[in-house]
């Protein structure tokens, strides 16, 4: 797993982020789920923006951020 670069993506509608390493357990997406494996009709859980309107980002987390992101 460490050899694979896991992606982070951000919703251009509202800024909600999806992190492949963390998944979104509250929304039924297990940690490690690749972006490509999320259905094309999936929408942002916060604002309803379509999957295609997410943008890959290379941004680190603030202190405590990953924990908050996983329970978003």
């Amino acid at each position, binding site marked *: 797993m460490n050899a694979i670069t896991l992606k982070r993506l*951000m919703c251009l509608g509202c800024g909600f982020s999806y992190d492949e390493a963390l998944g979104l357990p509250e929304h039924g997406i297990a940690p490690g789920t690749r972006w490509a494996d999320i259905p094309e009709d999936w929408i942002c859980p*916060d*604002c309803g923006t379509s999957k295609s309107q997410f943008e890959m980002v290379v*941004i680190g*987390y*603030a202190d405590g*951020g990953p924990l908050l992101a996983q329970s978003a």
Partner: protein
Amino acid sequence: MTQSFVLRAGERGHDVIYSEGSASSYVAGHPGSFISRESSFNFHQYQSGRPGFGAVRVFGDETFHGAGCGYNMHPHHNFIICAFVLEGELTHINTAGRGTVDQLRQGDYYVFSAGSGGKHCELSISPEDMHAIYLWLMPNQLYLPPSYLRAHFDLRTRRNRIVQLVGDSDGALPVAQDLRVSRLVTDRRTACTYTQRSPEHGTYVFVKEGELRSGDVTLGPRDSLGISGVGKIECEAADTTDVFLVETVMLDAGGLSAWEQEHGDHH
């Protein structure tokens, strides 16, 4: 390498969103209220065109028409949203920290960082139109603690020089990004030089009103210029001019450079 583009007023995105019909849950106001929005960069699904500039994802000027018009409370994460009020009164409500209800008038501006999650509401309560410039910025860290800061730019006393509103200068509102927003308001012809943090930074120059010349480019109302790869930007403003300058680190995220190559408008 110097790269630049010119975006004329008529090439910007234009949307009118009504408080009735399909957007009624999103747009506040009495029947007949509407928001008009002119966007330089891609505003979510509403516009095609240039998707952003450095850490800037949205640069638009918006007018809320009609009493109670605006955006109902809605959630954000991560994005840093800035508003600069030009006319009218903006009532801004957010949930950062213990929450804020704020009212902003001409010259007032705010920096709202949604971070780990924050909701906001933007309203023009009075029948007077509210006109503001909105910026959405990518932060330098995800899931920061949500925050809200506001300040005032005094148009009467801070004329004929470039004044930093957001960034790391004394008196500017700090922002969690390598980015600075400055403003130049003139009441006489003014020549000035904007020095970038480094030649690798880029600056988006937007003429709100008046006329600005830089090199062989002349910009009129709502025209704009994006430039990177230069140390300094020399410009000359006409005698009644209002200009916003947004200097940003040139992130190469989200396929911005791919879009530029495809459209081949860099020279």
